[in-house]
């Protein structure tokens, strides 16, 4: 872990941009899956959001919280991030520190749009670790903006308003976003059993992936 405060992230970015409530078929699929199980273990990797905490714990599920972007910012030095050159040993170290879980423990993982804001090598390593962490029929929900085109975009703060509605609010600090389309998303999750795409408004692609 990078000990230098100079390289520490500015903190999870304040929600300051536009916000938009929308029906989410991806969320519905996850909630339906959770409803049929007992002792569900949910991982929310988009950082703490009070609505999500209330929703998940209120349903009696167990919840783990982290923010993959904050973890990335904190772990890698500014130089490493700027050069985007990551040694495989460093990537392994990061994945181990960010997701130090046994295999097949999580029933449901919410990564929201975080994968889009990580360099491809980091993203691929995390996706593989997440696959191992998921239970055999576990689900992962990811969001991808298909209009990014390599531009800097503010990540979303994703709030679960109810079992079928998400409020997406742009955070204050834009970050470089990788470009994704259905084919590259399929390729990213090729080791998973099933990838389901849900049409969403504008250029947002909701994807539910089964281990």
């Amino acid at each position: 872990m990078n000990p230098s405060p100079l390289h520490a992230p500015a903190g999870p970015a304040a929600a300051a941009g536009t916000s938009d409530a929308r029906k989410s078929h991806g969320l519905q699929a996850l909630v339906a899956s959770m409803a049929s199980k007992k002792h569900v273990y949910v991982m929310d990797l988009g950082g703490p959001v009070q609505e999500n905490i209330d929703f998940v714990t209120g349903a009696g599920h167990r919840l783990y919280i982290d923010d993959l972007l904050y973890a990335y910012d904190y772990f890698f030095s500014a130089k490493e991030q700027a050069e985007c050159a990551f040694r495989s040993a460093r990537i392994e170290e990061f994945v181990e520190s960010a997701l130090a879980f046994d295999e097949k423990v999580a029933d449901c993982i919410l990564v929201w749009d975080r994968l889009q804001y990580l360099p491809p090598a980091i993203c691929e390593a995390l996706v593989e670790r997440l696959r191992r962490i998921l239970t055999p029929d576990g689900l992962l929900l990811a969001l991808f903006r298909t209009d990014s085109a390599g531009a800097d975009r503010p990540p979303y703060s994703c709030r679960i308003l109810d079992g079928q509605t998400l409020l997406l609010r742009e955070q204050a600090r834009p970050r470089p976003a990788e470009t994704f389309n259905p084919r590259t998303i399929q390729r990213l999750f090729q080791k998973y059993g099933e990838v389901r795409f849900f049409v969403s408004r504008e250029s947002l692609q909701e994807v539910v992936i089964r281990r």
Partner: protein
Amino acid sequence: MTARSAALIGKSLVLVGKVSGKEDLIVDGRIEGDIELPENCLTVGAAGHVQGSIRAREIVVFGSVHGNLEAVEKVQIRRNARVIGDMRTARPVIEEEAYFKGNVETIRAEHASDAAQRTPASESPQQPTLPNAVPPTGETRR
């Protein structure tokens, strides 16, 4: 009603070892050890740092904590705070501009009074049922 002042660990103070008592405490310095205030409120100030488990009636964090938190009433992690550890409380409140890494488990109201009498968070028999956010070196969570 008279206002009760809390005890204060000042910014320049470093305490190593277990802290326990029956009064509210504000930590602006550094504590390396567990804190036990089962009937009181523990506040970790913006400059404060705690390396150890905390058990209190209510916990408010403005600074940083590396350890598990257990509060029968409420845990509040305020903006710009940084907490790595599992949380067990009746009312978890985490502001979005805070960083939190760990498990959140809510205690139901009827269990809250029992929890106040229980063993410390670090010795809790129920704790292993959740993956530990602060595992011993080399261990993975489960």
